[in-house]
């Protein structure tokens, strides 16, 4: 089973990201489960969401404490909360940041970055103060993880993002191209 934890702030679209990512894996024949971390969400407050992916029906129904991978929608969360708590060694950490992966020393993880905020703004998603970065980060995830295709992500965005699907798809596509992968790419197993 693949377990992914998504960290964001209220308003960035972390919960929708979990749903879209689960939907993309589902399109490729996987069993999926996606859910938010049951908080009282306020704009700007830390939000967590979870995705499980497996080849068979998923039985466990609780939060994810030892994820295989992390998506961090806001780099300031790295200072605010212990985002890597429980993350398995060698796990992928995909961060929305204009900085390169080497700028983050979080431990024995595979770090990738993408400037999802700039990409979102370029495509008119959200405001300068609060760009909506969720679809961009998912495009980057398709490339950085190699576990789900960009096509599946784009199809799922078309179906489950009610407004501005085209701009969101364009942002995901651009983030797929622009994501900065760790160098040299290790052969670490993520799933």
């Amino acid at each position, binding site marked *: 089973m693949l377990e992914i934890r998504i960290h964001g702030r209220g308003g960035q679209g972390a919960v929708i990201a979990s749903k879209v990512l689960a939907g993309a894996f589902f399109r490729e024949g996987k069993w*999926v489960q*996606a859910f938010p971390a049951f908080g009282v969400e306020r704009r700007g407050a830390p939000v967590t969401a979870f995705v499980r992916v497996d080849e068979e029906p*998923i*039985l*466990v*129904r*609780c*939060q994810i404490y030892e994820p295989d991978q992390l998506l961090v929608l806001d780099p300031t969360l790295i200072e605010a909360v212990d985002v890597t708590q429980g993350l398995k060694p060698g796990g992928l950490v995909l961060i929305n940041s204009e900085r390169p992966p080497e700028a983050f020393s979080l431990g024995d993880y595979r770090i990738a970055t993408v400037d999802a905020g700039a990409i979102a703004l370029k495509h008119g998603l959200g405001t300068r103060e609060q760009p909506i970065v969720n679809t961009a980060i998912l495009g980057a995830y398709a490339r950085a993880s190699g576990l789900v295709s960009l096509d599946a992500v784009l199809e799922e965005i078309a179906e489950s993002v009610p407004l501005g699907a085209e701009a969101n798809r364009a942002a995901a596509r651009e983030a797929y191209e622009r994501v900065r992968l760790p160098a040299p790419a290790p052969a670490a197993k993520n799933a």
Partner: protein
Amino acid sequence: MAKKVLMGNHAVSYGARLSRVEVIAAYPITPQTQVVEELAEMCAWGDLNAKFIKVESEHSAMAACIGASATGARAFTATSSQGLLLMHEMLHWAAGARLPIVMANINRALAPPWSIWSEQTDSLAQRDTGWLQFYCESNQEVLDTTIQAFKISERVLLPAMIILDAFFLSHTYEPVEVPAQEAVDEFLPPYKPPLKLDVDDPHAFGALVGPDGYYEFRYNIQKAFEEAQRAIIEVGEEFGERFGRAYGLVEPFYVDDAEVVLVTSSTITSTARAVIKERRARGERVGLLKIRVFRPFPFEAVREMLLGVPKVAVIDRNLSLGHHGIFHAELKSALYGQRNAPAVFGFVAGLGGRDVTPRTIHQILDIVGSQEEPDRDVYWIGLKAKAEEGQPAGNGRKQRQRVKA
């Protein structure tokens, strides 16, 4: 059939739409959920030909459903926690009037302190109102049970509650097979009430009945609950034949040769299945009995499954204050005085949405494995140290200071 990724709330909405509900009466504000939000959209877009009545309280929502059902309409509502409690008076009325209303309740803990998280005490506190109660484990079961509930209710003329855990189902997205409308239409024909309010044939309903008659009314409802056991089994089997997923009153999982059987309901069942599979792989003789139907309580099915098992552990995400976990108490009453009854351990876990993880279930199995008999009435799992000393959990003083600042 088509498989879709649905959240639990919407699985209820799809089930109600496929059942061609005719009247939906609901209070639209907290603690309401997306169940009726989605149904309102379905009505607005013309995907569902139902009258959607917005009301000013849950008490009124149930009153409107009672009126609608009495005229022969298929009536539906949904609520949660405090909203369900506000309906309490009308719940008795719906059952006493023998109206097959179907309602979804999202299990949420009761205030104070305020909580929006999962706990079963809201619906279990309605156990004596005369409603059938189904506790669901997955979004698929939620959708399937919504459809079955109408068929069962309309056969025995009792209202039914479909119950799902807050967040662990209500806000969780997972794949759900959505049956085709034609297939559901064949399974669930339109509701034909034996008696109804009819302006062309006027009758009065709900009149005063003296001591010479009331007793028999209650006897008849009790008989209807006995019939409901058969109806639930038969409808669950028919559903299985038509849709490939059969349901019953209880569901055993590795019970046959088990030395320890967990008794669970709702989503704790699902997590416990993963733990049972893991321990079976290690050669441990452990199993699980899921209780799907709480009313009517499946006395016979429970005895059939558990008599002869050495040890049983009930996990309750609910509590009758001053008594025990509620499934625990009911189970003991079903087993009392029976030959070869197991030792019954009662665990209260996950109140107010505290996460019940595989680790929690392992802890429970370890406790049960280490002793022959329970050494207390109720076991609390993962209680914070301060509370065990009789003080409130968490740092109350620090919180007060923060509020002042």
